[in-house]
């Protein structure tokens, strides 16, 4: 889960940085101007900056150090030199895997962009509140299920006796070879990336002045033309963030290609894991990881040229000074795409399709369902009586539920639970303190750098981190060890808490603390009695997400688990990779149930305490 929710958390907070980039009218007072992320110089603010120190130190030591070690390992194992790199870059099968990784990742990102953009548009701008809520639920719900479950769902759908093939056979057609190849990987990956693409888009689109579209239509543009020529270019920052997040995740994907790719759909992540787990070829693994990390950095760097504010705007919601020219230098490629699309839009307008609003809404709802439904397929499977992943199941039975209660599954379940709770607590403390320290205590430059550091685990492919952890921990004897896993998971969970709490803090009026100070409250009291109570909602949410991040986290667990210590995701992965066993469906159902209960609980809690800041507030379309 870490790798999937990670991007979401980063992007949700990251794109708030784009608030200031979207040509907001400078003369109109924006509600948030007063709270703009400038730390206010007041006596004592400097001591708050040390609150960030523990988290920064933790991430630096536990995350960054192993990465550096990985890098050195790649040039020192088995002996000093670049042989590992040479080996990878000259061996055709390795090269093929690298190229395939980039292609699959780019392809899935592109499809996710094209498919998901209209959905994001609907969520952000539709006047129909039911549609918005429905779509948003469809998009966010997958975050509550782990990658393993979603991948498992696709196995059921695409399998040889799965949903699609059985339906085709019923209709009289032959079966199709849909699984264990590149196609399945792209499908699974795209499905996975859609929420990751849609959420940053929504965040940015919400800030677009609705008057812009009206202005365009009042000037004579049809709806489709106005959309393509005005709305899309203005949403570019969101597109950029979405592309970067999706590509980075895609390049580092492990679970999806491992389970769906078979022999022909291999990606770098799988190569790394095989090298570590099965071949103990650490040199190759570290070189491949370094290459992957390098590709990711290059991708981010490349987009940095097109984005203003640099990587900080990805990582730090406190937006750095925006250079005006950067907002508009869209580059010839983009302009070319837009004018091409503009011509098509013209045709669409003339044909009159764009006048029928239900076209887009229907499309959006369909995509929403396509995002939501696949994982729901695990529910009927969990009641299947056969071991094979046949859909629809031939008959029903509760045997897998009973099977779950054996120590075979219960032990990993309890292990995951234990780890999750400790990680949630630790990351909540570290992350919150860090958020307070960074947002309230640091100057913009340092704040941006710290944010970047703290959010790095979210940006980097988890498989690289997992390899790095493994290489380091095996020397410290921390593999196959609960504490080791806790350490590793905390590095993934802290950025989560940090991002959410930082966003909350940024929208919290600093004047409450000032008022407290003017009334005589020292820093500690301000923290206790002013800040924390106001942040309770955010704290609860982020702790929950931190727990989920650890509980659902698969990749690191796969690397660090062993005979003695095994997490639930690891057990599930084994079940998926080596046996085909619907007990996973049982786990999936239980985990979804858990997530739904927790969410419902927090929702009711928010209602009760009345602390529900309108999270999905509607922009009014008519001013009184």
């Amino acid at each position, binding site marked *: 889960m870490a790798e999937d929710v990670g991007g979401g958390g980063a992007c949700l907070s990251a794109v708030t940085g784009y608030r200031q980039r*979207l*040509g907001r*009218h*400078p*003369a*109109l007072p924006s509600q948030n101007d007063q709270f703009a992320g400038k730390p206010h110089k007041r006596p004592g603010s400097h001591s708050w900056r040390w609150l960030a120190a523990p988290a920064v130190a933790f991430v630096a030591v536990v995350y960054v150090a192993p990465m550096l070690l990985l890098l050195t390992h790649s040039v020192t194992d088995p002996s000093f030199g670049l042989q590992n790199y040479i080996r990878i870059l000259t061996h055709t099968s390795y090269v093929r895997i690298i190229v395939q990784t980039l292609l699959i990742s780019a392809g899935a990102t592109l499809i996710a962009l094209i498919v998901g953009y209209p959905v994001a548009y609907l969520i952000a701008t539709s006047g129909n509140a039911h549609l918005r809520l429905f779509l948003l639920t469809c998009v966010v719900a997958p975050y509550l299920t782990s990658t393993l479950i979603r991948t498992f769902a696709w196995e059921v759908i695409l399998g040889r006796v799965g949903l699609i093939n059985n339906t085709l056979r019923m209709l009289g057609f032959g079966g199709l070879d849909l699984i264990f190849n590149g196609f399945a990987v792209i499908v699974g990956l795209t499905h996975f990336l859609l929420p990751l693409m849609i959420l940053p888009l929504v965040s940015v689109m919400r800030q677009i*002045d609705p*008057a*812009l579209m*009206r*202005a*365009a*239509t*009042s*000037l*004579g*543009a*049809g*709806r489709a*033309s*106005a959309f393509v*020529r*005005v709305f899309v*270019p*203005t949403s*570019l920052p969101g597109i950029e963030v979405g592309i970067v997040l999706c590509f980075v995740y895609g390049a580092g994907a492990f679970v999806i290609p491992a389970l769906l790719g078979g022999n022909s759909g291999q990606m770098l992540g799988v190569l790394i894991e095989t090298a570590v787990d099965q071949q103990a070829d650490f040199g190759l693994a570290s070189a491949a990881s370094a290459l992957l990390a390098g590709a990711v950095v290059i991708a981010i760097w490349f987009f940095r040229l097109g984005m203003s504010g640099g990587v900080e705007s990805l990582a730090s919601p406190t937006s750095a000074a925006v250079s*005006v020219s950067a*907002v*508009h230098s*869209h580059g010839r490629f983009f302009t070319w795409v837009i004018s091409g699309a503009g011509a098509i839009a013209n045709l669409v307008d003339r044909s009159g399709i764009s*006048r029928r609003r239900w076209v887009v809404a229907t499309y959006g709802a369909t995509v929403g369902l396509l995002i939501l439904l696949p994982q729901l397929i695990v529910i009927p499977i969990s009641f299947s009586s056969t071991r094979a992943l046949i859909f629809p199941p031939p008959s029903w039975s509760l045997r897998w539920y009973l099977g779950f209660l054996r120590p075979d599954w219960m032990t990993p379940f309890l292990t995951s639970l234990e780890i999750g709770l400790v990680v949630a607590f630790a990351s909540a403390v570290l992350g919150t303190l860090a958020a307070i320290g960074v947002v309230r205590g640091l100057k913009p430059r340092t704040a941006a750098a710290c944010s970047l550091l703290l959010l790095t685990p979210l940006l980097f492919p988890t498989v690289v981190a997992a390899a790095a952890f493994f290489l380091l921990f095996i020397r410290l004897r921390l593999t196959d060890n609960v504490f080791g896993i806790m350490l590793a998971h905390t590095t993934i969970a802290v950025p989560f808490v940090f991002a959410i709490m930082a966003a909350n803090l940024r929208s919290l009026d600093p004047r409450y603390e000032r008022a407290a100070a003017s009334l005589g409250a020292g820093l500690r009291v301000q923290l206790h009695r002013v800040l924390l109570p106001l942040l309770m909602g955010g704290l609860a949410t982020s702790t929950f997400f931190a727990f989920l991040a650890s509980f659902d986290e698969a990749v690191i667990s796969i690397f660090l688990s062993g005979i003695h210590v095994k997490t639930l995701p690891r057990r599930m992965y084994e079940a998926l990779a080596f046996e085909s066993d619907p007990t996973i469906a049982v786990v999936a159902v239980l985990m979804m149930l858990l997530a739904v209960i927790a969410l419902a609980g927090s929702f009711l809690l928010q209602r009760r305490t009345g602390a529900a800041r309108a999270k999905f507030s509607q922009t009014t*379309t*008519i*001013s*009184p």
Partner: protein
Amino acid sequence: MAGLSKAWGSVDVISGIDLSIAGGEFFTLLGPSGCGKTTTLMMLAGFVEPSAGEVWIDGRQVTHDPPQDRNIGVVFQSYALFPHMTVTENLAFPLEMRKVRRAEIDRRVAEVLDLIQLSAVGCYYPAQLSGGQQQRVAVARAVIFKPPVLLMDEPLGALDRKLRVDLQIELRRLQQRLGITVVYVTHDQDEAMSMSDRIALLNAGRLEQVGRPTEIYEEPASLFVARFLGNNNVMQGRISSENGRLRLDSGRLIPSRRCQIGVGEQVCAIIRSERVTLDNNGAQDAVEGRVQAVIFLGAQTEYRVDAAGLGEMRVTVQNTAEQRRWRLGDEVAICWKPDDLRLFRKESAGGEYQPAAPGDQHGVARSDQKGGFQ
């Protein structure tokens, strides 16, 4: 000639608006926040569908036409300049939509930039311009394709006072030069009165009065109109049996103007603060009072006087050289011309006041009246 009329509208927000606007006229929709003026404008533009009623432009019905087909220029409160396009590209946009040739586009853009005196900023992006410059570009973009009608939704709201006044004059000049019909929305009465040929005052979705600025200011048709404009003194009382006098609720008797309200009826009497004087000059019916507050406003001074039997009266006095200045606590004698009073009959329980004096009737558009106004 662009004339338009509209009637009715979405039931909850607006009811029964009938307006006819002449070509080349500067017409303002004025009213407090939430009165529906912007919604009305949006219906004119085509962004909001009316629940009932019609919109006609130039003799053609456009009620159900989408905005892109109405050929109207709109200036939004936030200007809505496309942030990813330069000023030139923004200006060229409507012409591109109308498939004008490139050379012609360039010519017209240059012409319009010259008109708003911003020829130098063509290649800048909106975010690089000042508020006043952006406003002018927004107006230019809305008129470059020569629409018959221009709609403006509180375009000067975001600017400081000096700039606002300058731009008001410039807008008016531009409008007269182009001969274009303008429908302007604002909540600022000074702005409305200084710029408009005619004003429509709205309150809670209904039209209160339509007329020239002088008309609605001097002869308000309803209590709401009277109280919305200007600085008012309000007195409540009854028409007394004594000749042409008003007995206030406090018991005081004051001279009143002739009107058609019967004796004993409840009325609300309004007098503008600039029509009240503090000098006695031996007038008979002067009321004694004491100065409670002196508010210096630059060109004028407002005095709040506690007058016997009248309550707190506001008096505005021009600060000329010869004008006497009073101080806190001074004893003064308030008086006014009875003809300057405006009387409104108190209607049943609703408290909706109707004009009561002869000559005070100006077609107030209510839901049961249809009117065409010149």
